[in-house]
């Protein structure tokens, strides 16, 4: 039994089939990259896995448990953390408060009206900020952060609830090349160390081939190839559809 098992997933918007009959599996401690041109269905797939969208058909299993069509908050409680293609943080709050909110929610302490949230779980939050390398900016408000830094905040938020599966939609977009490599090494390290499953999309092929254990290639909503980086690199169909164009 794999950590994540996806079978026959499909989503259509009106007449456009964004994701069609998608099936794959991901084991704990492994990095799976989903690549494909714009409009291939990557973000739609992420949204179905994260609970932001309901699939039309198909099933999603987490550790063998069907989580298909669950709302996002329930999928999150089941151990799925995610980042978004366009970062979504709480813009009016500080970096610290953003991450602390996740910790509070994870510990089911977010309902209290009786005490101030100030200072709760300080050490845990600071350790997370340390991990993603943004501790020095913890007092800054998210609305004024650079995009690359927001991506780090999102990573810290995704890790704060100790997920088993991490969904990362373009985790390094908006970062300088040197930063990208460092962040991906960080993610890979966490993946191995904590035995997390990581599913990520990325447009930078160097990053994909360096860090992914497996690569899945999407085109027009369908998986046209799935294998090790070497297999995918050698696949003639992939070269024609995707790599050839790049």
């Amino acid at each position: 039994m794999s950590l994540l098992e996806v079978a026959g997933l499909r989503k259509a918007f009106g007449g456009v089939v964004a994701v069609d009959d998608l099936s794959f599996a991901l084991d704990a401690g492994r990095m799976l990259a989903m690549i494909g041109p714009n409009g291939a269905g990557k973000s739609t797939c992420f949204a179905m896995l994260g609970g932001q969208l309901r699939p039309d058909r198909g099933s999603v299993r987490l550790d063998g448990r069907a989580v298909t069509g669950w709302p996002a908050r329930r999928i999150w409680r089941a151990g799925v953390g995610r980042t978004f293609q366009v970062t979504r943080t709480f813009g009016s709050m500080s970096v610290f408060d953003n991450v602390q909110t996740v910790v509070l929610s994870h510990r089911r302490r977010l309902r209290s009206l009786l005490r101030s949230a100030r200072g709760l779980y300080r050490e845990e939050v600071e350790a997370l900020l340390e991990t993603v390398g943004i501790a020095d900016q913890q007092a800054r408000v998210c609305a004024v952060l650079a995009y690359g830094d927001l991506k780090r905040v999102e990573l810290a938020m995704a890790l704060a609830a100790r997920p088993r599966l991490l969904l990362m939609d373009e985790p390094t977009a908006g970062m300088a090349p040197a930063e990208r490599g460092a962040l991906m090494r960080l993610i890979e390290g966490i993946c191995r160390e904590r035995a997390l499953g990581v599913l990520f999309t990325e447009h930078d092929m160097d990053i994909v081939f360096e860090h992914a254990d497996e690569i899945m290639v999407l085109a027009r909503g369908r998986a046209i190839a799935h294998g090790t980086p070497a297999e995918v690199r050698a696949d003639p169909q992939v070269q024609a559809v995707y790599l050839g164009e790049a």
Partner: protein
Amino acid sequence: MGLFVVQFLTGLSGAASLFLVASGLTLIFGVTRIVNFAHGSFYMLGAYLALSLIEALPVPRGTWGGAPFWAAMAAAALGVGLIGVLVETIVLKPIYKAPELFQLLATFGVILVVQDAALWTWGAEDRLGPRAPGLRGSIEVMGQRMPVYDLLLIAVCPVVLAGLLLLFRTTRWGILVRAATADRQMVAALGVDQRWLFTSVFFLGSCLAGLGGALQLPKGGADLAMDFGIVADMFVVTVIGGMGSIVGAFLAALLIGELRAFGVLFFPESTLILTFLIMAVVLVLRPQGLLGRAEPADAPGHDAEPVRPADRTWRIAVSVLLAALLALPMIADPFVLVLAIDVLVMALFAASLHAIMGPGGMVSFGHAAFFGGGAYAAALAVVHLGAPMTAALPAGVVGAALLAAVIGFFCVRLRGVYFAMLTLAFAQIAWSIVFQWTEVTGGDDGLLGIWPAAWAADRTRYYYLTLALVTAGIAFLRFAVFTPFGRGLRAGRDSPVRAEAIGIDVARRQWAAFVLAGAVAGLAGGLYVFAKGSVFPDEMAIPRSFDGLMMVLLGGVNTLSGPWVGAGVFTSLQDWLSRMPFWRLTLGCSIIALVILFPQGIAGFVRQRAHRHRDRGS
């Protein structure tokens, strides 16, 4: 059978004015994203202008005898269009860049100005409309009589709709309007001069409102209550149709027109409730209205700013204020004390509205439902159950909380302007229940003789009681913002998608906040009843909700101190001005001036200055 056909036709004719007014509102909203509260005032002006023109124009003999009447109708519509342009240019142009909500406040100001301008020009008496020449009589339809004029109204709706659609499909201007309704930023990026587009849309929208008012004249005449009278109706029609959709407004106007016509037959006592019930049902089933587009999931109503804990200056300022309030009975005369109680009660009311608007990001147009709900719950406990004040005040809190639980249950499913409109609709339902259920609530006559317990009967003592409860209420709401609960609420406001993705049930949390705010508003209502000794349906009517909005926005929605600063300024201003002739005009102009001078609100402005000063100093 004949009766049904005639009721059906009556329904169609009733839809005419609704459609004209609502299409103008929806057009303006679609392009400028401004909810023009003053649109009802334009409707009223249309009726009065037409009346004056008909009286002024000479009537020629012979076949052209009807010409001046129709010319007056057309001229009134164009005249109102020009007034719309004037308002847009003077009042709204300077504040297009201000937060969206602030434009609401400016249009409130316009309502007040128009009210007094109309009073000054046309007098306080209701005016009968002249009959339309050539359409005076009635005809027989299947054995039932109906006025000929109604047939004209029936024809107006589809003709205007066809004209508008033609305008939007075939002219360059129309295409720009449709493009701007779909994506305003894109149109701006394409180099279209938005200023001109906005002004022209305001002209057309106001013309339609004016025409609606003018055409209504032979049936309903003209009076000074027309503006608020149509506000709720026009919101209902635009929201049911879908904000920005003309065809939607048409369908919704027909729906409401027919509902009223047949409602009178079957449920004569509950016509008011019926309208709003339909709106609630439509919005719950289809949150974006019949033909509207859904609001994007992650679109906060305003640019939220960080909340800041109190700093030293603030603590000192509040301590001084509290000391002054404590000392007030020793230095001030009884009249000032009466005003002070009013200001305190309104401060609590405004703070409760702010709790959902600021940290919750939910702009309510119907918060008076809970103020009035609390007031009535307390009053009913006294009148019908003989409860003492110590029991009646908690009853007010509980009553308002229950009402908020019911209303909030439906409203939190919606976002942005739809949420606002649905709250307004529910508040109107609550108001119409109180207004129509005379046996229990006393209807328009209100409930009288509700006085504080003996230990608090003395004015000074009641003042201290109010001060204590209001301070506690405001302090609690302020504290709540910094608790984990408040954090989760703000998270849901900043990014609902992210909040859901970290386990927060956003709608449920908003519901909880809504109930909490309702309960606090109920406390304010209860305090108000015992201060006045009576309660009337006005306490839960639209103007009371607008007062709350004005206080919050005037103070600054992004500051925690905003609501009570706004309440202090607004209530004092109103009290001071209301002793003068044409005080609404002055108040309206003051509001407009304040909006243009302080687009961040008063407390927001002070904070901005303080920070700038500090930044320069360091």
